[in-house]
């Protein structure tokens, strides 16, 4: 019953998406058809309800392990811990696509239900595009990946879940990224709506901004969580592998970062119109491209997804339809949108444009590196593109970007003289040189790591400089958001540079009783014992780790074997200190020592300040949240003020009419009720 209800809800949502698309499109025409435009908003709202309902029904089926549903039978198991039964809902292709359309419909519903600032025609066009996008994903779900398919005979037991994914990281990381991807679909629809109706202006930018910011916050959080998950779960000690699936999440983030800065320019200064539209299209194409790369299996990745070329073709067709279509409209319309207001190179806009170009260049580098194997495989050459390409090529653009990022917020809008901020410039340059000199004295480290350290410290100081000379209490919340996000970038950069420059590593074969030394830590292997969990068996080492003379901390890294399906994984053990992390992994048995004791491979890393990478990521996301909160508060204030102004104007008018009737001299003085001035950006 549950499955049939869910399927019915999905089909109804699909029908409503068709209605939303048609009525939205009719709203663009003048004449008889235009009156049907009123159905677009309700269609989106009801659709949101139905699609979310469908997702919750599947969640329920997973919660009770309904083995008559094929998806539950293949991906769940009655012996699995309850929380992982729930997360299993989206730990597979069909369920995650259902989550995708659920979030897509929900954001469409929110847009339709809440947004009243856009001209009706622009809104109609936006909803039509949003309906069109949703329709594609509904068809994909219903025609090629039905999550509610029943088995002819219910299974006796489920087929488990990839043990690597049996982790709380899975509960947060992919759905967070999905929300981000989908949020960018709203940005795409809005951009197309504005392009079709030629309403690319600051008003449009203000409507677009919270969606971009929201999607960007989720992407930032998702990437941060994903990076930490890979770090402790894969047991390789790395936090970023330039894997195609990681890149698939990084590329939309880069595009969204560029977009949110260009939206700010459009909102504040009415410049960068076509560029903003282009980025809106680009950001969503990157999230769709990510979905395509991940699901189609055209690229080889460490992320073992259920890949299927047929699904790949479907997503590619959708990609062609949406992005190809959008780019055709862009090519036809972009010329008719004027470029907007001018500005000089040394201005806030100038700095933002520079960073936009740098971000786009980094995006191009990541995109090229990710797709390059696809290109060479067409000529039968199998290659793998890794850090030796991505790190230096990315750095060429990242370093100037960080430099301008430090200075940009200090510049004024429209036109500024560098001489005005010469003191700040000199101070930052001094910091960079001092750090480089200091690190060079300390030891011999890679150029990129040293530059990263220097830039991160300069950037951290620069992030706080916009507060100089201002009354802290009167700084707008959105500005705090920017400061927090930029400071977060500095913190993350510091973590990355410190990890790559100062990490100490040791690989040893040790028997119980032996110990190893790494970076001032003494690590003793006390014993190795077999342990068992609900669906795995493992060997667990008891390790006593102590820095200097302190009391030893007990660690229990494991080498696990899951039995359904059979797969080995390693569970790292970590000690987190303010200045870094100790990372311990136990590997296979490595022969016997002279006394006949079994020896085990033990791998230990000391990673100074590595945690700053993720603290920084969280700070960046938090900055985004602050920024949204600040913008929404200002918007609400403004909306209230406008509403109050309207009431007052009506009162005045009524009064004036009353005066006229009374025959008194009309001196209503209503001139104070002009448009409410926009608060300073």
């Amino acid at each position, binding site marked *: 019953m549950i499955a049939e209800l869910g399927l019915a809800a999905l089909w109804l949502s699909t029908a409503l998406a068709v209605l939303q698309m048609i009525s939205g499109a009719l709203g663009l025409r003048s004449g008889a058809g235009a009156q049907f435009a009123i159905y677009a908003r309700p269609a989106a709202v009801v659709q949101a309800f139905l699609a979310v309902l469908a997702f919750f029904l599947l969640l329920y089926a997973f919660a009770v392990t309904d083995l008559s549903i094929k998806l539950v039978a293949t991906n769940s198991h009655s012996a699995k811990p309850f929380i992982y039964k729930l997360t299993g809902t989206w730990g597979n292709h069909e369920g995650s696509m259902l989550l995708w359309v659920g979030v897509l419909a929900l954001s469409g519903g929110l847009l339709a239900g809440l947004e009243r600032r856009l001209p009706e025609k622009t809104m109609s066009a936006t909803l039509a595009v949003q309906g069109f996008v949703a329709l594609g994903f509904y068809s994909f779900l219903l025609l090629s990946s039905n999550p509610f398919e029943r088995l002819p005979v219910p299974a006796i037991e489920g087929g488990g879940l990839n043990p690597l994914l049996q982790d709380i990281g899975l509960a947060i990381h992919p759905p967070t990224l999905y929300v981000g991807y989908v949020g960018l679909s709203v940005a795409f629809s809005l951009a197309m709506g504005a392009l079709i109706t030629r309403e690319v202006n600051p008003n449009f930018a203000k409507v677009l901004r919270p969606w971009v910011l929201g999607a960007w916050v989720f992407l930032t959080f998702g990437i941060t969580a994903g990076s930490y998950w890979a770090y402790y779960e894969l047991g390789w000690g790395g936090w970023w592998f330039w894997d195609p699936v990681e890149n698939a999440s990084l590329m939309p983030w880069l595009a969204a970062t560029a977009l949110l800065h260009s939206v700010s320019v459009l909102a504040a200064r009415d410049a960068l119109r076509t560029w903003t539209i282009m980025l809106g299209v680009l950001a969503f*194409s990157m999230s769709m491209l990510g979905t395509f790369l991940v699901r189609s299996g055209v690229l080889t990745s460490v992320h073992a997804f259920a890949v299927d*070329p047929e699904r790949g073709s479907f997503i590619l067709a959708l990609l062609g339809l949406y992005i190809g279509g959008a780019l055709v409209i862009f090519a036809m319309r972009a010329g008719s949108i004027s470029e907007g207001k001018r500005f000089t190179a040394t201005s806030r806009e100038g700095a933002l444009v520079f960073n936009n170009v740098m971000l786009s260049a980094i995006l191009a580098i990541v995109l090229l590196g990710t797709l390059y194997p696809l290109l060479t495989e*067409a000529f039968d050459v199998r290659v793998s593109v890794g850090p030796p390409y991505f790190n230096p090529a990315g750095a060429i653009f990242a370093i100037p970007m960080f430099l301008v990022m430090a200075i940009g917020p200090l510049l004024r809008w429209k036109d500024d003289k560098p001489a005005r901020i010469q003191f700040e410039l000199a101070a930052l340059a001094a910091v960079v040189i001092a750090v480089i000199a200091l690190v060079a004295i300390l030891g011999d480290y890679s150029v990129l790591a040293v530059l990263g350290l220097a830039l991160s410290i300069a950037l951290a100081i620069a992030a706080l400089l916009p507060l100089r000379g201002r009354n802290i209490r009167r700084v707008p919340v959105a500005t705090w958001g920017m400061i927090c996000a930029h400071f977060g970038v500095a913190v993350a950069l510091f973590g990355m540079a410190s990890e790559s420059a100062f990490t100490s590593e040791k690989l040893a074969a040790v028997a119980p009783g032996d110990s190893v030394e790494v970076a001032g830590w003494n690590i003793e292997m006390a014993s190795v014992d077999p342990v068992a969990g609900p669906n795995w068996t493992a060997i667990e080492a008891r390790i006593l780790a102590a820095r200097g003379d302190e009391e030893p901390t007990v660690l229990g890294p494991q080498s696990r074997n899951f039995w359904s399906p059979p797969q080995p994984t390693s569970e790292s053990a970590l000690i987190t200190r303010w200045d870094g992390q100790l990372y311990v992994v136990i590997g296979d048995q490595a022969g016997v020592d002279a006394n006949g004791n079994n020896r085990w491979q033990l791998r230990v890393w000391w990673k100074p300040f590595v945690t700053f990478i993720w603290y920084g990521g969280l700070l960046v996301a938090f900055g985004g949240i602050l920024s949204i909160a600040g913008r929404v508060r200002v918007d609400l204030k403004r909306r209230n003020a406008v509403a109050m102004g309207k009431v007052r104007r009506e009162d005045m008018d009524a009064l004036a009419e009353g005066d006229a009737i009374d025959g008194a001299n009309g001196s209503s003085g209503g001139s104070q009720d002009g448009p409410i001035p926009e608060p300073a950006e």
Partner: protein
Amino acid sequence: MRPIYLIPLALFLFFAGLAGYQLTQEKMQTIPSQMVEQPLPEFTLAPALEGMPGATRADFVGGQPRLLNIWASWCLPCIAEAPHLERLKEEGVEIIGIAVRDRPEAVADFLDRYGNPYTKIGSDDISELMLEIGASGVPETYVIDADGNIRYQHIGDVRADTVPQLLEILEDVR
């Protein structure tokens, strides 16, 4: 329409064409071993089962070419290939088994159920031989000539149509 606005579309179409082409191409799902045409590495593995000999490299040298079959009692495709290994045995082929990460009881149980085509079974408890000969999974079957060289690698389970193919290769390397 200014031509510059067509650039994104052109780039996108190039990508879409490339991706579409790649989707139609057969993907290589397996990784062939670099050890094919190389001598079998030196190894000595303890018996996987009481009452049967273990396996060493020396077992492959001299006489006829042999098959080296990597399997495990926990591996489902190994059940599927058991009858075909039996047929190879009936054809007079000597098959030496390598049981990967297995227990003697489980090995005995498996052979009771699905038959025993092996003359010797070595126990590879930590996948050391698997790694040395470049096997990417279980099961895999290797043709080893009488000089102890690896001549052919079959990835995955042995099926009905693999049997004549293997017999032919065994004949060729004789």
